[in-house]
C-alpha cells in the first residue's frame, strides 16, 4: 500500500550527511590523539584515544565485562518487569475507578518530574548495599511514565471503537479486554519504553553511585584505581550499551505499530 511517489531523494543525498557526521567525529578523535601525543593536552587528564581503545580490550578480558553486563541486564530486566506489571495494573485501576484517577494522576505526574534517584541513600539504608537497592531505584524511576501512558492510552480509545463494543452488547469486562486494552497497547508500549529507559539510566547510575553491581560499578572501580584509560573505556562501554538498548526499543516499538 505504499505510495510509489514517495520522495526518492538520490541515494547520495541521503547518505552524505551521515558520512559527514561520522567523518567529523572521527576527525575530532584523530585531532585529539594528535594534540595529546604532542603534549598540547595533558595525557594525565585526557588519555589518547589509542590508549582508550587498548583499555577496551583489557577490560573485556580482565574485567569480566560479559558477566557485569549480564548483572546489569538482570537488574534492569527485573526492574523492567516490575514496573511494567505494577505500572499497567495501576493505570488500569486508575482508569477503572475514575475518582482514583482524578485524585492521583497529578501526583503521579509530579513524581515523574521529581528527582527520585536522590533517594538512593535512603534506599541504601532500607535495602542495603546490594542489587535490591539498584532494582528498586530502577523500578520507581520507571514507574510514573508507564502509569501515565497506560491511563492516556485507555482513555484515548476512539469513541467509535467503544460504540462498536456497545453495539455487540459487551459487558464492562469484555469491553475492557477486547477493545479498550488492545487499542491502548501502542501507547502503553510507549510508556513501557520510557520506563525501561529510565530504569536503565537509574540502574547504571545507582551502580555507579553505590559502587556495587555490573557495568556502573566497573566505572567507579577503575576510577578509584586511577586507571584513566580504563575509566574512559568503561564509560564508553556503558554509553554504547545504553544507545543500543535505546535503539532496540525503538525498533520494537516501530514493529509493534506499523500503521499509524
Amino acid at each position, binding site marked *: 500500500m*505504499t*505510495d510509489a511517489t514517495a520522495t526518492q531523494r538520490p541515494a547520495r543525498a541521503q547518505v552524505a550527511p551521515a558520512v559527514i557526521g561520522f567523518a567529523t567525529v572521527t576527525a575530532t578523535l584523530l585531532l585529539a590523539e594528535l594534540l595529546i601525543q604532542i603534549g598540547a593536552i595533558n595525557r594525565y587528564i585526557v588519555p589518547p584515544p589509542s590508549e582508550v581503545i587498548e583499555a577496551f580490550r583489557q577490560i573485556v578480558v580482565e574485567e569480566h565485562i560479559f558477566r557485569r553486563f549480564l548483572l546489569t541486564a538482570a537488574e534492569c530486566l527485573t526492574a523492567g518487569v516490575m514496573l511494567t506489571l505494577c505500572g499497567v495494573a495501576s493505570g488500569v485501576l486508575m482508569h477503572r475507578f475514575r475518582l482514583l484517577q482524578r485524585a492521583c494522576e497529578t501526583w503521579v505526574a509530579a513524581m515523574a518530574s521529581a528527582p527520585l534517584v536522590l533517594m538512593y541513600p535512603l534506599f541504601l539504608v532500607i535495602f542495603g548495599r546490594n542489587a535490591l537497592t539498584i532494582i528498586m531505584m530502577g523500578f520507581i524511576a520507571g514507574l510514573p511514565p508507564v502509569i501515565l501512558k497506560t491511563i492516556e492510552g485507555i482513555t484515548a480509545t476512539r469513541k467509535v471503537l467503544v460504540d462498536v463494543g456497545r453495539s455487540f452488547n459487551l459487558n464492562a469486562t469484555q469491553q475492557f479486554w477486547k477493545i479498550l486494552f488492545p487499542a491502548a497497547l501502542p501507547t502503553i508500549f510507549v510508556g513501557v519504553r520510557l520506563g525501561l529507559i529510565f530504569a536503565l539510566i537509574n540502574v547504571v547510575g545507582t551502580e555507579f553511585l553505590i559502587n556495587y553491581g555490573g557495568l556502573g560499578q566497573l566505572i567507579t572501580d577503575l576510577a578509584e584505581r586511577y586507571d584513566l584509560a580504563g575509566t574512559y573505556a568503561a564509560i564508553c562501554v556503558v554509553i554504547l550499551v545504553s544507545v543500543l538498548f535505546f535503539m532496540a526499543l525503538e525498533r520494537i516499538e516501530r514493529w509493534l505499530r506499523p500503521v499509524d
Partner: protein
Amino acid sequence: MATTAASAGDAILVVDDITVRFETAEGPITAVDDVSFHVKPGEFLSVIGPSGCGKSTLFNVIGGLLSHHQGTVTVAGETISSPHKSIGMVFQEESTFPWRNVTDNVAFPLELVGMPRDKRIALARHFIALVGIDGFENRYPGELSGGMRQRVSLARTLAAAPKILLMDEPFAALDEQTRLLLGDKVLQIQQQLKQTTLLITHNITEAVQMSDRILVMTYRPGKVKRIVDIDLPRPRTSEIVGSEAFGRYVAQIWNDLREEASRGMRDEESHVLHHHHGGA
C-alpha cells in the same frame, strides 16, 4: 502571447523572460516558462490562472524569495535577486505573528528598520485605521477572525510603504462575504493610495472587478496566454459589476481559463492513474 502596447519605459515593475524549473521526484518540471509583462505605477494588475499554472512560483520570484530562475525582474530600474524594499508581500496563509498584538504586528517592518517606538506606533495606528480594524489595536491575532487577521497582514505590509504591493490569493481562505468586503476595502485603499498592485488570484469576478489589466496564464508550464485590458470606469460599483460589459469580460476570461483548467484536470488524472498503476 499578446502584450499591450505600453512601453516599458514608464513601467515600475518589469518582468522579463522569467523561466523557473524545478527538480522533482519525477524529473524536472518547468513551472513558469518565458513570462514577460510590465506594470505601470498606480496600476492594478491581476494574474489569473488554473491551479498548477505557476502563479505562486511567479509570486515568489517577483518577491525575491526564489532566486533560482532565468530572466530578470526589475523594480524602478533595480534588478531583484532577494526581497526588495520596494516590494511588499501579502501571503495566502495565516501570517500574523500570534505572539504580537495587532499594533506590534503592523509595526513589525518599522521595527526592523529601527524606527523609534512612538513614531512606529503612530504609523501603525494609521494603517490599522486604514484597513478598518481600529479599536482592535491591543488584541492578539488569536482573538480575531480570519478576515481581520488578513487585514492585519495587509496593514503590516502597507506600513512598509512598498512601491509595489504583491498579493498571493490573500482572500482564498475566507468565506465569500468576507472576501467581497475585504476586496472592496483593498480596492478602496488602492485607489486612495494610488498603490501599484499585483494580485494573484483564481477568482475571475474578483479579478475583473478590481483590475486595470488581467494577465491570464496557461497551465504548466505557465506561460502568458493573454493580457486583457479591463476598460471599465472606476469606481467599480455594483451597477458596473452587474453590467453586460463586465459579464463579457468574465466570460472571455473564463473561456481562456476553462481550456487551461481542463488540461490541468486531465493531467492530474493521468498522473494519478500512472502512479497507482505503478504502486499497486
